[in-house]
């Protein structure tokens, strides 16, 4: 037990990544505010980044850093477009409740 506490390994970082991803999934599932759902998606992307960097470190391969950089850039683009969609939806319907956005439901 103390070995697990005081001797870091790759698994610690992977476990942190899994926990963070699970929290992000929980937020995306249980929240109704579209903004909080977007934040949960950011959490999941960051969890994936932690895993990528952990494996890059494990294999001493810097390519993972390039991939993580791409993930951050795409996450920035996703946040910009997602927030623009949220603003447009709010302007049209005066709310951002994802459970009430049923225009595409038949």
């Amino acid at each position, binding site marked *: 037990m103390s070995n697990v506490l005081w001797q870091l*390994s790759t698994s610690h970082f992977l476990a942190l990544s899994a926990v963070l991803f699970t929290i992000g999934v929980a937020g995306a599932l249980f929240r109704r505010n579209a903004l*909080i759902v977007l934040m949960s998606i950011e959490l999941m992307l960051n969890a994936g980044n*932690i895993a990528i960097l952990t494996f890059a470190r494990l294999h001493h391969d810097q390519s993972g850093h390039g991939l993580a950089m791409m993930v951050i850039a795409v996450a920035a683009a996703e946040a910009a477009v997602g927030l623009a969609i949220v603003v447009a939806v709010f302007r049209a319907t005066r709310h951002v409740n994802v459970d009430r956005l049923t225009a595409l439901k038949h």
Partner: protein
Amino acid sequence: MRTGAAALLLVGVVLLVAGVASAQPGPGPTAQIAVPRPGGGVQLLRIDGAGNVDAVPAVATDAPDDMSAPAPTGKGAAFAFWLFSAIVVGGAIFTITRRNAVTAVMSLVGTFIGIAAIYAMLFAHFLAAIQVLVYAGAIMVLFVFVVMLLNKEEEEPFAFRGVIGKVLSLGAIAYLGFRLITLFWRVKDDPTLTEAAWQTGEFAAYGTTKGVGQLLFTDYLFPFEAVSIVLLVAVIGALVLAHPEHVTAGEPEPEPAGKPPGAGAGAVAGEAEPHV
């Protein structure tokens, strides 16, 4: 609760500053090459943000370098890892449970700063800086602006209607994560590969701006340029989506007549606006 988020953020900032202050002095593996033996002490000191650095150099003389281990070694590194993990997980839980969106954004900033510290522990120094600049800086400012634009109290913030299916799916995700952890818990580094590679000094620039920059501008030049196209498309798409009306060139932006932005305009505005 807002004071709690502020305290979390403050703790994250202080720890990050402390980590950067102790991390900056040595460029790490580069100095290690020039002076092999004492450089190990420098390397370990850099990770150690806890303060108990005196015992580490004696151990570090045995190890060739901290880079050869699959994870940062030493009790100080472990203490820093648990501390930053607590900040990250606590901030993430805070983010998804708070009713106020501003509080959620602020705790998310603390989470991202903790994640930057975790990146630094993984020798991804350049990405740690990028994380602070892009995530905690740019993206969070964007979130704050949108929250200010449409700050509205939710009547029911949590969606518990299909709760059984959601709990089941969440349990499935958590189980998947648990299985992945137990699978990867036995992942070991290949010592022969890393030791031999380390002797050649191939990983001197691992994770630094120089190393990542050389990688991005040689092997990953095309994806790097493609990302710029993605960002351009995202900027244009965000403008098109968030713009109220379709404005033709040369025309001033038409002020929506008879449509006050307050109450009572909901139905009218809903019909007048183009559907998204």
